[in-house]
């Protein structure tokens, strides 16, 4: 075949024009700001599945929003959704509202609806399993469970509920899923394939996943994670959802929308060290952060704040600390770093999305949230580890998400200019 000379790609700038979030901190932006400004933690005993025989019984539990009559699906249809999808529906509705969009008229057909999740509708899978093993010949409710266990089905219901039609893509890159989803959607808009994208992540607490982390002894025995403390002993799981509206500059201007921030860099890399353990030097994290900077055409010295992955496990935090120091070099000491998982827990597939929202709140409010509960800082932290919420001038921020299987993703946001 013949080939014409390739033209240099023309990229468009991408802005965040709306966000919605639900986490153990609350169900809107103001609740998150208030909590982070006060330095509160949000962990309590799980009461919707049996934890009586677990080593750890607490987690970051979100208040599940109730059915809203404005949803264009019935309450019965809503009740078919798993807990996580209900959280995502709420966050998506809030994001569209925040972007001052009318779903039916402002969101074009075929708009990417890019979602990150790690466990998806696992609670429905658990219910299906229990019914099959206790009443194998009763099919009552089983088809519905199987249908809605498949997350693409629930994503269709969310679109119906909110009155828009999108191209669902579900990325399941473990705990980096939310960041990958936002990064992927960012590139779809940046490259001009779409003018608008909705992207975020969700995960609800599920017995199997909770027991899995407990079996790995990855959960903090005290239930209070202490990321970057020298004596940290594990993470706390949390649940929630966050959704961002990403928009090209042209689309944003045409609508007269107000940008919350510009998303300008996305990097990813795969850590080959081990299925569940990062390379001790955080090699893939360095690559991921470097790739994000390259994508954004900026230097590490231009980043003022990092919302770290910072789970609170012994291996993760030292690897990430080493990676930040190597990546930033001499500038590391000037970079403010914190982990908001210390306050709300690790939201797994939603982590990258909610922590992106936290970065946007930091840019808007000119403050940085803290890594809470630290007594003695790990000596690997040769950066400005934020232990108390702080007012600060922040213009460009980065968030890291690392997952099982070696998925590493980094996103960069900056104040709109």
């Amino acid at each position, binding site marked *: *075949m013949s080939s014409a000379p390739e033209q240099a790609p023309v990229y468009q700038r991408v802005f965040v024009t709306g966000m919605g979030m639900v986490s153990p901190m609350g169900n809107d932006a103001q609740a998150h700001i208030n909590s982070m400004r006060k330095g509160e933690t949000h962990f309590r005993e799980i009461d919707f599945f049996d934890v009586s025989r677990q080593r750890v019984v607490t987690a970051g539990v979100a208040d599940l929003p109730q059915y809203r009559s404005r949803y264009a699906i019935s309450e019965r249809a809503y009740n078919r959704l798993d807990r996580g999808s209900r959280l995502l529906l709420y966050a998506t509705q809030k994001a569209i509202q925040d972007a001052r969009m009318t779903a039916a008229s402002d969101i074009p057909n075929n708009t990417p609806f890019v979602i990150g999740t790690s466990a998806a509708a696992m609670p429905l899978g658990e219910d299906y399993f229990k019914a099959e093993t206790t009443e*194998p*010949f009763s099919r009552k409710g089983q088809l519905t469970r199987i249908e809605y266990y498949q*997350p693409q089905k629930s994503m269709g219901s969310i679109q119906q509920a909110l009155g828009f039609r999108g191209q669902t893509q*579900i990325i399941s890159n473990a705990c980096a899923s939310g960041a990958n989803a936002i990064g992927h959607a960012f590139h779809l808009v940046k*490259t001009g394939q779409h003018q608008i994208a909705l992207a975020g992540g969700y995960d609800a607490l599920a017995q199997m996943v909770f027991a*899995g982390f407990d079996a790995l002894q990855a959960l903090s025995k005290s239930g209070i994670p202490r990321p970057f403390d020298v004596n940290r002993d594990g993470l706390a799981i949390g649940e929630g959802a966050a959704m961002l509206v990403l928009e090209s500059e042209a689309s944003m201007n045409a609508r007269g929308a107000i940008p919350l921030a510009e998303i300008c860099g996305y990097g990813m890399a*795969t850590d080959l060290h081990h299925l569940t353990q990062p390379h001790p030097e955080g090699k893939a994290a360095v*690559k991921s952060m470097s790739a994000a900077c390259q994508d954004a055409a900026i230097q590490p010295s231009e980043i003022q704040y990092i919302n770290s992955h910072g789970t609170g496990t012994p291996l993760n935090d030292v690897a990430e600390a080493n990676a930040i120091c190597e990546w930033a070099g001499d500038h590391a000491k000037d970079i403010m770093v914190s982990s908001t998982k210390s306050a709300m827990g690790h939201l797994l597939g939603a982590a990258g999305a909610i922590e992106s929202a936290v970065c946007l709140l930091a840019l808007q409010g000119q403050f940085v949230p803290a890594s809470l509960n630290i007594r003695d800082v790990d000596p690997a932290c040769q950066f400005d580890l934020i232990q108390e919420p702080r007012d600060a001038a922040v213009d460009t921020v980065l968030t890291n998400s690392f997952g099982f299987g070696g*998925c590493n993703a980094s996103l960069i946001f900056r104040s709109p200019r």
Partner: protein
Amino acid sequence: MAATPHSFLDLLDNYFVNTSSSSSQDSLFVRGHGCVSAAGIGAGAIYQACMGELELTEEKRERIAGKETIVSEVRPVDAAALKAAMPKHPRLRRASNVSKFAITAACEAMGAELVERVQNQELRLGIVLMFMNGCVNYSNRFYTEVLADPSLASPIIFPETVYNAPASHVAGYLKSEGPAYTLISDSAGWFSSIKIAQDWLNAGQVDGCLVICAEELDWLVTEAFSLYSGRLHGTEGAAAIYLEKRSSRGASEVEIQSMIGPCDYTNTAERRDAIGSAWAIHAVSPDALLVDGLTGVARIDRDEQDILAAWSGKRVSPSAKLGFGGGATCGFQSIVALEALKNEHDSALVMASGTNQHAFSAHFRKS
């Protein structure tokens, strides 16, 4: 808005991904393909089975449930043949079957030379792996342990239940530090995965990209299939293709000439319209071999059967031969198409109706 029928020109505007065209931006060449299926290890076996040259045996699997026994008829992968063909690597010792299927198909798709180039960091690889169900064997086993006594639940099994464990093992074996996505989707997600690979190639993020789909059998899956129809039998395995933007100018090279999709839907009525939209692909090559998604179960096939009824050319239905392979279904179809191009055809269409998300279609052609 429901997916509505479009004129072919509308579809070209909205969906057409690629042509043989003058621009290399969208060119997409299949440089290799591989498959693990109930027909055997290797892409040739599934084609032979679909052409009726290979008999497939069905296996009855029993699950004791209280005083009763539940029987599922399945077509599984031959475990001994898989073990003999699978690459050896410490990561794979306790990996799930779905990981083993994926890596075996991936290695066939890439071939030894390309595998070595990736392992030597001479080629930047992307990996997109998709499925509907994922690592169900270990999920079943682990959750059984959790319900019995969580303090004894195996910490070794749990990580293998995570959706992206297979992609991690593939990357680990190939020593690929590049981008890797795991997608959850209905069976047509195979083509969404190809679209992502194309984006990475167009952006210059990678030199080549592996697209893999895989599924494994378990009673959890086969009994779920039976909720749709008692005649819908399960199968398992993996399909993989290795894609590059540039032609190797090899004699047997195949180009993905065009794709239509995603044609999204959220309910049964919309599904019919979406399949109709995707079926516009038939206009590009009326002489092609059609590889459809029919399962042989009338109730499940009705929409696709009706919409494709006018097709008078040659056609083959891999799922009717093999059984329903969940997220691996469209990958199997594509492997059959690619083998057909190797053997006797110049052009093949793959029709992916999906199950509850989207429809897609693709035109594969010898370049």
